[in-house]
């Protein structure tokens, strides 16, 4: 969409201000015209570490890097820091170190307070409502240059960021499912439903069909109930519930049925969702003819997995590989979270889909190691790193850690095999 003459705006996260002009943009944008409201000002900032994405991994990376003395620019396209944490109203798992028992929203507040702490005043700059859109070659060998567009108050500013190191904590995109009617208003990703309910305080609908019984589907299903919305059922294509039993149990004791080996076949309605057809699957995941059932609902919520966001990493040219356990193509990285391009780091979901608790530790690792690499408090950073690594291994040791463990092992193998 185009807002006030600025193209390529994600209107779902842009503030609605009095008098803004929103226009459909169904093709490539034309270069915005210079005018007084939309001045393009080129700025240069020389900083140690650019961190792209202020979610749990990015915030922890910034705090660690700054603790060891590096200067940080933390950029996020949203209006506030926190990433997915700001909609996670449930209590987190883990141990004291990962703030277990604390709700995601409280963790976001705590990390935000730390970022604003006086001792980081000269170390951490936060740039919100801004997108890092491109990587550019730089004449200086040990510097990287990125293009950033800031949209604050619908005044676009083009900023050239020059940094010594960069950490990508850009998160992931929700997966979509193919079925007739999936473009009808009322078909949402689970993340969008959470944003509407828990961030904007808007009910997405009155009666929901949840697709996917992983932790995201189960947790968002429960949060829908808490918002006073009816959840008709949860369907899950796999033969078993993928998320934690305790999350499934919360839904079940509120009378929400969960159907494994079931999927969505289609959604119907003229201009919005009026209902959906669900179908049972056989051992080979094929629909069983005649098992179709109509579910009356005005909302279909898709919680069918996430795909790491890697476009900027691809543009830089880091070594990528398809790692299905990690959720798709990811940047190969070592245990320090460094990619094949020196001083380019990755952490959190964009390095392989996992949990917020492990994303925070990966962020800490990337932050500490990037600072160390630039020469800041090398011994202390190394000690901290070894502690974080242990914590990470401990969290991944159980059966639910098997998938991320496999993913990271495969990444390590591919990393070592690089030419």
């Amino acid at each position, binding site marked *: 969409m185009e807002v006030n003459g600025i193209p390529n705006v994600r209107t779902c996260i842009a503030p609605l201000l009095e008098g803004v002009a929103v226009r459909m943009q169904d093709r490539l944008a034309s270069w915005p015209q210079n005018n007084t409201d939309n001045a393009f000002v080129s700025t240069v900032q020389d900083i140690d570490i650019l961190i792209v994405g202020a979610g749990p991994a990015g915030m922890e990376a910034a705090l660690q890097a700054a603790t060891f003395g590096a200067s940080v620019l933390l950029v996020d396209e949203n209006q506030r820091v926190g990433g997915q944490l700001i909609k996670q109203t449930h209590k987190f798992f*883990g141990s004291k170190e990962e703030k277990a028992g604390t709700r995601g929203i409280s963790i976001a507040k705590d990390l935000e307070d730390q970022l604003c702490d006086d001792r980081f005043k000269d170390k951490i700059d936060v740039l919100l409502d801004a997108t890092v859109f491109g990587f550019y070659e730089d004449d200086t060998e040990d510097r990287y240059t990125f293009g950033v567009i800031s949209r604050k108050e619908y005044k676009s500013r083009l900023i050239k960021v020059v940094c010594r190191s960069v950490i990508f904590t850009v998160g992931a995109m929700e997966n979509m499912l193919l079925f007739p009617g999936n473009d009808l208003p009322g078909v949402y990703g689970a993340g969008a439903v959470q944003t509407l309910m828990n961030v904007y305080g808007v009910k997405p609908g009155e009666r929901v069909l949840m697709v996917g019984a992983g932790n995201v589907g189960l947790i968002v299903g429960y949060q829908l109930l808490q918002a006073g919305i009816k959840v008709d059922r949860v369907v899950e294509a796999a033969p078993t519930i993928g998320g934690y039993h305790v999350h499934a149990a919360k839904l079940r004791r509120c009378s929400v049925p969960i159907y494994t080996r079931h999927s969505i076949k289609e959604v119907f309605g003229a201009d919005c969702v009026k209902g959906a057809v669900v179908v049972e699957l056989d051992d080979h995941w094929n629909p069983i003819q005649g098992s179709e059932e109509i579910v009356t609902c005005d909302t279909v919520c898709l919680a069918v997995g996430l795909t790491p966001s890697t476009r900027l990493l691809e543009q830089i040219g880091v070594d990528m590989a398809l790692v299905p356990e990690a959720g798709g193509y990811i940047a190969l990285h070592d245990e320090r979270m460094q990619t094949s391009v020196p001083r380019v780091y990755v952490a959190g979901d964009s390095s392989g889909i996992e949990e917020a608790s492990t994303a925070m530790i990966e962020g800490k690792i990337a932050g500490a190691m990037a600072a160390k690499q630039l020469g800041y408090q090398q011994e202390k950073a190394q000690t901290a790193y070894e502690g974080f690594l242990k914590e990470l291994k401990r969290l991944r040791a159980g059966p639910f850690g098997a998938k991320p463990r496999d993913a990271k092992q495969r990444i390590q193998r591919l990393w070592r095999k690089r030419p």
Partner: protein
Amino acid sequence: MSDFENTGILSISDLVLPTNEQLEKGVAITECIQRIPCNPCVDSCPVHAISMKDINALPVVDYDACIACGRCVGVCPGLAIFVVKVQGDQALITLPYEFLPRPQKGESVSVLDRAGKTMGKGKIIRVKQQGRTSIITVSVEKKYAMDVRNIRV
């Protein structure tokens, strides 16, 4: 393959059950049967009655040591701990509740089992707040001690 992985509902055989004497004293029952990396219940217990070998192990409650204080009920991120105390022909179930409106002491509410099936009515004995989680104690017929796990206000 255990049934709860298909249904999301535990059966009594999935749990370590307390004895009748322990139930009369009152005990915390952890309905947490998967090895997930989580241990705040261990830290919350004032008498160290909950133990875990490592963070991915299952919590083990020493029913004799447990004083049924219910602190773990409000701490558990999975809302999977319940305190059950049998008193005469009644069972007092203490459960976590994260819905509004909160019930009032003395109120009569519907009581539900693990499948969300209504098991009749119960009386609210106590309402506590632990953070944003309400800790509700509801009194039900003794025979439902191991069945009732939710309320509907």
